[in-house]
């Protein structure tokens, strides 16, 4: 019974702080996406020639996002029955968009007019494959000005 209470408290903390952090993060992501909308990002440029440019440079944006107890608990339950892990979809979505934004914001500060050959990689930082999971998302691309 005591264990159950501890789990419920952890779930409440995880859900409370986790969803608050997520709302704040999405708010920030949307504002910054709007502000950087004028600079296009493209996936081509690896095997095609780059658009005409005076200068190019590599830009990297990376972010580590932690899961919370609520999300991990939902994942553990989901592991029993299989299927889509809804609680992790938003976590990865935030990671990808934040990494892209960081890359983009740095490129814009440098004076980029567009970013070509943009790639995204994800890796998970976990404790021996068990327990709470943090994910790292790294986005990189070639800035052009």
């Amino acid at each position: 019974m005591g264990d159950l209470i501890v789990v419920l408290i952890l779930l409440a903390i995880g859900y409370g702080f986790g969803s608050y952090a997520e709302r704040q993060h999405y708010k920030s992501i949307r504002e910054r996406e709007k502000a950087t909308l004028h600079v296009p990002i493209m996936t081509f440029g690896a095997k095609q020639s780059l658009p005409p440019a005076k200068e190019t440079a590599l830009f990297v944006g990376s972010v580590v996002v932690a899961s919370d107890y609520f999300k991990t608990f939902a994942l553990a339950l989901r592991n029993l029955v299989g299927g889509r892990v809804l609680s992790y979809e938003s976590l990865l979505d935030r990671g990808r968009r934040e990494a892209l934004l960081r890359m983009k914001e740095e490129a814009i500060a440098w004076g980029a007019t567009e970013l070509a050959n943009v790639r995204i990689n994800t890796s998970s930082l976990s404790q021996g494959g068990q327990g709470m999971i943090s994910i790292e998302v790294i986005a990189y691309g070639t800035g052009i000005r």
Partner: protein
Amino acid sequence: MNMKYTPKEITEEVNVTPTHPLVNLGYLAGTVVVSLVAIYAAMGVAVDLVVPRLSRSTEIKIGDSLLPVAQDQFGGNVLADDTRVDYLESLAQPLIREELSDLPITIHLMDTEIANAAIIAGGHVFVTTGLLEESRSENELVFILGHELGHLANRDSLKSLGRSLFLLLGSLALGIGTQNGQSSPLLNTTLDFQSLHYSREQETQADRYGMILTIEQYGHGGYALDFFERHSAHEPSFIPEYVLTHPLSENRIEALELFAAENNWSLTGDLVPLPEGIECPNFDCGNE
């Protein structure tokens, strides 16, 4: 080729399912809990179906893995070299009928004051030195051994494991459980003599089995029930453990008397005395 770039704001969250996390967790927890409850209920029903179908070798493996735990729970040392074990085995040997002929019966004499006898799966019969001290005749011992053999023949010990049986079968299949005679915590929780209860029906069947064996042995049931009669009525201050784990009320004595009457078995006959020194190690009480 030139294309014009038109900035477009992200307005749809295609990568995030718009289900509320709490609703999602609710469904998920609901599914898991309902499945677990269903499996738990199914296992309870399955025990009675599975137990009669287990092979002797599986039963023996289960018994061997439970043996160290059972000895711990009984308390007291195992008196393996005591000659009284040979005596008990010679008492039990003629009682083994055809249905138990493929099961090796092992008697474990436990050195403890508490009068008790019990079995676990795989042919392990426990008898305490307390029981030997309390006994007044061989007839009593034969009935008690017969009763325990009845539990073995009906596989009551396996049935009493309940759902833990599946845990045990699983751990046997995976080769976990006992290592070097050390019992694991898993097995310790699986077997609990303190809360061991056979159903009234199981006790009745074991009683009848014991009675039949006693009649086969002596031709009568005289003195066989004396152990219980002494403890059920005359000594209310002392309740031996055996009566607790195998509650033998007045009703059960009456039921046995009725059972004997139905079969025209006599409940009177000669008393077969116990060997001299049954209460002492190796029958040797020394000269005090």
